[in-house]
């Protein structure tokens, strides 16, 4: 595997989308190429950082109640 191909596949690897047939080749390259190892570590760090930051966000309380109220109002208006 060439460095360019390896780098294009980093995203797939981090998302768990890499097909098994390429994975071995990918890992062999990772272990044998110092430059790509550094590159990989940067994306890995980015991934960890972003996953930490982009966590689930709590919706405001009462958000759903407003939806239910709007539906109920809508139903009443339709019936009228």
């Amino acid at each position: 595997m060439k460095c360019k191909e390896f780098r294009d596949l980093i995203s797939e690897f981090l998302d768990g989308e890499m097909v098994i047939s390429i994975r071995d080749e990918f890992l062999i390259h990772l272990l044998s190429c110092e430059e790509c190892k550094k590159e990989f570590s940067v994306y890995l760090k980015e991934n960890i950082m972003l996953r930490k930051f982009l966590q689930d966000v709590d919706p405001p309380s009462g958000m759903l109640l407003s939806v239910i109220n709007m539906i109920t109002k809508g139903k009443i208006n339709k019936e009228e």
Partner: protein
Amino acid sequence: MDRKLKEKIKKAAKGDLDAFQYICKRYEKKVFTFVYHLLGSHEAAEEVTQDTFLSVYWNLKNLKNIEKFEPWLFKIARNYVYQYSRKDYSKKEDFFEDGNGAKNGDVDMDYTPEEHLIKGEIGDEIKKAINSLDLKYREVFTLAVVEGYSYKEIAEMLGRSIQSVKTDIHRARVKLRKSLEKYLNEGKDEV
């Protein structure tokens, strides 16, 4: 999809409000999170999430395959996000929160010292970097990294090819890496 959810969807499609509430409770956080990361604002996310669930209620009877409920739900949310961003496009500067972290504080989480550091010092930069991505990159990236959908599921949801989803997620990572370079390169040579 579990049996209970299927039952609730069937009932909600016939107008059962209790069943609909069950569905809303089950998905409100997921949808709100997705929308929030695309629009970068709590107020916008609230409005869009409400519109999404209203649309779900009125249109659920038209959903042909219950198994596809989740991608269908996210497709509706996504359409409202695009509508919302077009509506406010001229005010885009005000539209995104300014990255000073005030809204980040609304997220209720316990932080370790390391996480605190990330949130305080780098959090704003990450937010700016995410908001600087085109919506099409933010969308696929959020679905994959935050919501944990596979490339195949995202492709189905958005009506795109798996290859184009894959390419855009990779491009999003490359762009974010450039924006966050100074933080990411620390210790790079020590590997």
